[in-house]
């Protein structure tokens, strides 16, 4: 009995001596919603962060704290020789601790991306608070401009970027960092840029727009896709489900379709110790609008329509593949395909000079499209009236 009491006594003392030493109240933290990393000059980085201001976000006892007008967030930036130093630079003028666990978007400035970004991403891997599910984007221009934009819909721009990314390419940090070191595969990062609201200057604000993808060579930005190529990238990354497609059939009349389902089957043959690729797409679409009034029940017209669709998709996919190939970049991962299926060939012949070989590699794109559901426009046989 006495022994138990002694032990209890020690426990009670121990409990009072420990304490809430790593306790942090919610209102002692600065929740970073997004980080923008820009490169100013060699070895000098500017890291901007966007922090919501809880006191300006509503809540029953608001008031106080609202420093930057009506905006429920503010942007600040720090300068340092690397990202961590820039963060520390910022921390010195922040009364609340920077908290990265709720960061949703990381935006890389165009200059940083085109001069190599890998070392700036180390912090994401090393910092225990940062999440690998954070979306990563490349900004057209400065990353800070994205953070200071003011989209109409969302309270916080980072939220807008996140929602936009979800509907477009959607690449998170884990995927991008993985791709940085895959043999025969180069990373793709969606691009975000600012635009002004298109309403003749009434209540004009700076909106955000996802604009294609940045194609990287290793960790260096090679080029940014145009609209057609962006669609091609979407096809290749299997992000085209439920996406809409407009195909011109005749002069000034288009078919509007929605992609219901599609399969992407890459394959290759070895010819003279070099692979020849065939990328096959089997697409099922539903007809949304039939502007040219085609009778799709007629087999001839149906095959005409599907041929047009096939041509359109082929143009998109081949466009991006050929463009990337010509500059020695492999965003789809043709090399990675060989690496996995024919590792010996890859290691012996291709791995060393894949980039030099790439422009001459043959890639064929085959598309087979079907219209699964049609509407009744263009059908001449109607119910007898």
């Amino acid at each position, binding site marked *: 009995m006495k022994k138990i*009491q002694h032990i209890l006594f020690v426990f009670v003392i121990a409990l009072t001596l420990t*304490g*809430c030493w790593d*306790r*942090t109240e919610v209102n002692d933290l600065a929740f970073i*919603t997004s980080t923008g990393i820009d490169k100013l000059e060699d070895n000098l980085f500017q890291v901007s962060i966007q922090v*919501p201001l809880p006191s300006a976000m509503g*809540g029953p006892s608001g008031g106080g704290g609202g420093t930057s007008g009506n905006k429920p967030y503010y942007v600040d930036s720090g300068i340092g020789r690397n990202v961590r130093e820039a963060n520390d630079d910022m921390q010195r003028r922040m009364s609340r601790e920077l908290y990265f666990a*709720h960061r949703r978007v990381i935006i890389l400035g165009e200059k940083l991306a085109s001069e190599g970004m890998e070392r700036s991403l180390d912090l994401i891997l090393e910092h225990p608070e940062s999440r690998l599910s954070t979306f990563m984007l490349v900004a057209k221009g400065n990353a800070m401009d994205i953070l200071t934009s003011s989209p109409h819909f969302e309270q916080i721009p980072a939220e807008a970027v996140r929602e936009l990314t979800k509907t477009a390419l959607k690449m998170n940090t884990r995927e991008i960092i993985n791709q940085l070191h895959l043999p025969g595969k180069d990373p793709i990062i969606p691009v975000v840029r600012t635009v002004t609201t298109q309403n003749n200057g009434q209540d004009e604000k700076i909106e955000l727009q996802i604009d294609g993808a940045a194609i990287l060579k290793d960790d260096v930005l090679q080029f940014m896709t145009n609209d057609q190529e962006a669609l091609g990238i979407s096809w290749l990354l299997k992000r085209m489900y439920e996406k809409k497609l407009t195909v011109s059939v005749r002069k000034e009349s288009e078919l509007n379709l929605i992609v219901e389902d599609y399969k992407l089957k890459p394959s290759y043959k070895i010819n003279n110790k070099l692979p020849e690729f065939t990328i096959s797409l089997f697409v099922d679409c539903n007809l949304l609008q039939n502007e040219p009034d085609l009778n799709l029940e007629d087999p001839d017209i149906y095959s005409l329509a599907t041929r047009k669709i096939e041509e359109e998709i082929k143009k998109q996919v081949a466009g991006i593949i050929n463009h990337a190939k010509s500059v020695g970049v492999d965003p789809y991962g043709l090399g990675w395909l060989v690496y996995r299926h024919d590792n010996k060939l890859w290691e012996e012949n291709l791995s060393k000079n894949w980039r030099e070989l790439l422009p001459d590699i043959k890639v064929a794109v085959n598309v087979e499209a079907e219209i699964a559901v049609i509407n009744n426009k263009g059908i001449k046989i109607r119910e007898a009236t």
Partner: protein
Amino acid sequence: MKRFIKPKKLIQEIVIQAPIEEPIVPNIQENIKRLKSSFEKCSDVKFREIKLENIKAFILFVDGLVDNQSIQFNAIHELLSETVHAQLTSEYIEQRIVSISDVIEIEKLDDIVKNVLDGNTVLIVDGLEKALVLNAKGGERRAVAEPETETAVRGPKEGFVENIAVNIALIRQKLRSNHLKLITKEIGTVSRTIVGMMYLEHLASPELVKEIEDRLERIKIDAILESGYIEEFIEDSPSSLFPQIQNTERPDTVAGNLLEGRVVILINGSPFALIVPATFWQFLQANEDYYHRYHISFFIRFLRIIMVFLALLLPAIYIAVTTYHQEMIPTNLLYSIAASRESIPFPAFIEAMIMEIAFEALREAGLRLPKIVGQAVSILGALVIGQAAVEAGIVSAPMVIVVSLTGIASFTIPKFNMAISIRILRFPMMFLAGMFGLFGISIGGLIIVTHLCKLRSFGVPYFSPIAPLKWRELKDIFVRYPWWAMDKRPTQTIEENLNRQVDNLKPSSVQQK
């Protein structure tokens, strides 16, 4: 350190007035003299003197405990109008004169005292060495009414009353079997409370009945005023926070438990019957679970288990997550929490403590006050704590939601004593959460679960049938199977007669044709 150690206690004997072990003597004056001396200054004890022809007789009773009408017409009137024949014996009076159904003879003065105090009427006749006990108990009693603590939407609306005889009759009406046995005892030197044990002979294990009898036998006390006294004397782990004996006001609950082989203890003067042994899950079950269609019970039992977790852990989890693990809160929710916490002067833990204690105080105040004032308290509480505190920026709105959700969750636990245990345990959990975060909550949860697994109620593991696991009995724990699927009784106390019903009772279109 010495202060912590209790001095050893001596076993104390309680002082009992020595009983008058003397026999009744033929001389009535002598008897009356002695009785009057033992009932000195008990003005409610009436000595009614009558004469049978010229033989002196006394009728003794306590005013208010007897049925005056019955005594008047069946005893006094009969005695007075009797013309006595030569030999007057107690048998003669019993068989020919008094028209009361229950009459017994006693021979000791002490028995006279006891019987008078029990509410019986005692007739002493000059020249006889025996006294007659006329059982004509009466007096004012509460009528059988709907139990207030366990109301039901569907199910019997009668509840126990303070009188044990009525309660026993209520149970007997439900289980009209000669297997239903009753053992009565008197406990308490002053109160001499009647304590009855009821069980079904073919179901309850004899060891259990013996054990309960032994434990009841142990109690030497002056008075038992409520079943709570007995509960504290016979439970297995008095230091545990969890109730190990179930109490109920409902005869149907009692009957249901008897049919599962448990033993029921009834206490005269209390409308609460004790049910032993009890397991943890019993406290999460309401009698109505068995009366509604099983789909409803299925859902409601799940709901209750979720609510037990909420009642125990919600404030603790809120504290832990907002002060240690902010990354676990969905981002937008975190922003709203941060927004509402912006102007709060206290840390989350202190805030939660203030609110929880205020809530408990409110609940207690509302409970003890007269009903009319109670309403005022609840209005005051809702207004002051709920609204004013938030508007004044003393407490954040999410915390008010958390606390009220916790309160509601704890009210979904059907048995009050379990609800209060869980409510008390919430506070140490909050401490642990405030000190160690989720780690503390897991440690606290482990301690509670370990304790629950270790507890026993009359030899039955408290957490059974989860630990030790019995698959077949799970059909009446988290869910309730339909009646036609519950063909076996739980095996906690029963060894034989496990079948509750015949097989194949499930209604189907084929059979019903």
